[in-house]
């Protein structure tokens, strides 16, 4: 269980499970620096996604985690930071 890694593919899987994908958005394209909002994920979808990440990885987000980490790259880094500090 020690130092788990959270990758973009994990995020994509969880996004798809918890919120699907907007028509016209290809999650397999280069999305690392695209705002979640632009990818079609509004606050509710991000809350669901956040809840799923928290449960699967045993971490806890601050209330403004998604306000401060608006792109997949930022969120992946944030999650890995939390995982490291928990390890």
């Amino acid at each position, binding site marked *: 269980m020690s130092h788990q890694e959270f990758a973009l593919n994990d995020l994509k899987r969880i996004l*798809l*499970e*918890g*919120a*699907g*994908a*907007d*028509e016209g958005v290809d999650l397999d394209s280069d999305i690392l620096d695209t705002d979640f909002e632009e990818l*079609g994920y509004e606050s*509710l*979808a991000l*809350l*669901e996604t956040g*809840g799923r990440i*928290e*449960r699967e990885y045993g971490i806890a987000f601050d209330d403004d985690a998604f306000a401060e980490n608006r792109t997949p790259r930022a969120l992946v880094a944030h999650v890995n930071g939390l995982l490291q500090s928990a390890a």
Partner: protein
Amino acid sequence: MTAKVVITGIGVATPNGLGVDDFWAATRIGKNAIGPVTRFDAAQYPSRLAGEIHSFTAEDHLPSRLIPQTDRMTRLALVAADCAFEDAGVKPGDIPEFDMGVVTASTSGGFEFGQNELKKLWSQGSQYVSAYQSFAWFYAVNSGQISIRNGMRGPSGVVVSDQAGGLDAIAQARRQIRKGSKLIFSGGFDASICPWGWVAQIAGGRMTTSDQPERAYLPFDADASGYVPGEGGALMILEDAEAARARGAANIYGEIAGYGATIDPKPGSGRESGLRRAIETALADADLAPGQIDVVFADAAGSPDLDRVEADALSAVFGPGGVPVTAPKTMTGRLYSGAAPVDVVSAVLAMREGLIPPTTNVTLAPEYDIDLVTGQARTASVRAALVIARGQGGFNSAVVVRAVD
């Protein structure tokens, strides 16, 4: 002046048909769709038959963004709404957003969604409950989701009166059009064939325990033993008749001409059921005499005490055997808030074809003096139809649908 309100678009999904054409092709020939429950293992329960929709794959019709946040009944309703819009030939932008609304009925909300979240709450913990639980199960969800998907910002609503609600919603939609809205979506969908919903329905004490699909749901039959639950429903587009003609509506199926509703007195009061009064009110509202009604779509509860009340009310209003009566829901089971909207659809399609669909599987018990259309469909000129819906707790609603020339 009260505006004439007409049906201009239909979306329907029942165990015996998806879409108007499929549904009517099955209904007119009496195609039975009751069978063993397949959505879960019902072996341990006293009731094991249902009217299930087998051929519906939500992912084929709806964006993936909507799937995780919707119960089955919402997915069915959203797809039916799309079909009704297409049928009506209305495109987004044709009608101002604030002039379009959605009024639906619900019986038990997104019960299966609720079941799954309750399970997570109690077996895993509160942090496992979905962010969508706050609305996906509640009674208002279909009106909300339909309004969002179709950009409808006008007067909207949701009524819950068990099976009678399907007609109450249509009446409320007509009210909104008379107050000035141009287009209102109305109808109802329910789909609670899941273990938790099943147990709640068993608790109601009126489900049949028969295992024979053709001998299970037998309203007005000497062997009546309760009902079989089903899933599905119908959504209709209602418009002001003049406005519909002005925009060149392709389909004007019929007019919602009359409505009446009552609730029975408290059980044990010894007073008469309010059903007769609801029927009489609907007829008076439509300005029709009983003799002008060509067919009655009965509620057909399937329990002898309730069938007795309905047969008595029909005989009192129309005279013994005074009007053809049918209950095509014997093919699908009872669809809760979806049942009466489906019957309204059947009524307008019966007008169009001149054919009364049959009450399948039933042999009329001699004690009921009603003219029940059993066996096969009956050819008839249908210009006006009465639809009856009743809900547990004593809810009685009646709607008169009239042909439009």
